[in-house]
């Protein structure tokens, strides 16, 4: 679905990421991990074409991207409600109202929440709205940048289930930036670690070794892989 070769992004004269290479098969889930400032968000933005980059990014010709950005800073008094936002996407895509109902169902967002201004929504509601928005474009690839950041623990668990459910039911390819290594371990087929000293790519079991985590994060992490899980 996606081939990335020797990807590099320079911002303000410094290499934020460089030499990133990986292949992502269709309908798989890639987790991108790494410390703050390692360039996870930058890489996602490069992948959707929002940043100039070096190297090669090749999406499959039928790839339709849905992007869910990192926690957006929406002003509380912004006079836009959930319906305005989704309606805009429906109009842009020329899709039907039925699709909207289905998208809301998929993310578990009740219809009545849509009359709430988006700046008043809870973290979990807004993230669900963003995912529903992405689904309205009928994507087969979903890129999510820390979708659970700023959401309480039960909300995080629900969001993870929503995302995983989408991947299962709709055979979506998922790229997920996450700080939650247990989520990564549970849901991801592949892990891309962006670290201070370059990148690594592999299945979770190989990538998430204590040595590798120390290498990526620059310090030991108390994360243990339970062989029975």
């Amino acid at each position, binding site marked *: 679905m996606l081939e990335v070769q020797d990807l590099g992004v320079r911002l303000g004269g410094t290499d934020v990421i460089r030499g990133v290479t990986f292949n992502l098969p269709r309908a798989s889930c890639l987790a991108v991990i790494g410390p703050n400032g390692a360039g996870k968000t930058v890489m996602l933005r490069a992948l959707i074409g929002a940043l100039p980059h070096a190297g090669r990014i090749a999406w499959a010709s039928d790839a339709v991207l849905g992007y869910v950005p990192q926690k957006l800073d929406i002003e509380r008094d912004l006079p*836009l*409600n959930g319906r305005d936002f989704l309606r805009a996407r429906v109009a842009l895509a020329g899709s039907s109202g039925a699709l909207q109902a289905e998208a809301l169902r998929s993310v578990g967002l009740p219809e009545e929440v849509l009359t709430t201004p988006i700046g008043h929504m809870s973290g979990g509601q807004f993230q669900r709205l963003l995912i529903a928005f992405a689904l309205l474009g009928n994507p087969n690839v979903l890129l999510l940048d820390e979708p659970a950041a700023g959401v309480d623990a039960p909300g995080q668990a629900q969001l993870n289930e929503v995302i995983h459910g989408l991947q299962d039911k709709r055979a979506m390819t998922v790229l997920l930036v996450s700080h939650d290594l247990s989520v990564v371990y549970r849901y991801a087929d592949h892990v891309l670690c962006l670290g201070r000293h370059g990148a690594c790519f592999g299945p979770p079991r190989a990538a998430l070794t204590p040595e590798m985590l120390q290498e990526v994060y620059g310090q030991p992490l108390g994360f243990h892989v339970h062989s029975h899980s």
Partner: protein
Amino acid sequence: MASRWDSMSTATHELAPELGSLALAALMAVAAGLIGSFAVMRRMVLAADPMSHIALPGIGIALILRVNPLWGALVLLLLGAVLIWAVERRSRIATEAVIGVTFAVALAVGSVITSGEQLIDALLGAPATLTLHEALFGIIGALIVIVFVLRTRNALVVRLVSPEIAMTSAVDVARLDLYFLLAFALTIGLGLRFLGVLLMGSLIIIPAAIARRFARSLGRMLTISVTVAVAATAAGTYIASVAGRPSGPFIVMVAGGLFFLSLLRRHET
């Protein structure tokens, strides 16, 4: 004061004065209310003012070249829009400084090449009779802005929430931003004859700022903003005609008064 502008224009036709001019002012107000809504939501409030200043040297140059000042103002406004767009694309950080400095220089240059009475006209607007060309420009310009905002409102909404989301929603963000700035500049140009360089920015911003205090949806935002803009323009023009003075300051005073009234209502949080 009106004669200053008219003497520079080549057209001799004059529209049926009062009514035609009021209808045109209303159309301009609708455009201002619509473009202002998105400008306020995009936090462009502070850009509106300096941007309108760039019209001034255009007016000065036009007066020197003996063409209608409106065209000089319009050319520089549209160039100013392209300049802001180009700067914003290059770097996000320096935008405000560049805009501020550029337009302050424009104001300085404009005040040097424009003489006293002309300057007052340009700053505060010259009332009354419009030439046929000016009236046509007003109608066509206002319609362009109105149609642009209504047709692209979905793309503007998504762009407002997140440029990256807009990009993955098949929106050409760079082009949309350019068109928006051009429409914004055009709206300022529309108001120059009525409100002048200094005050047009306020007719774009104030009604939208009021609307933002009350609206909880896009439809409400646009409706309230347009209504306030038209009401302030009508009331201000009426008061000005009774007082026999230029309408610009009165329009802005009415709009400003409504804004302060709106502050009396506690903002819901």
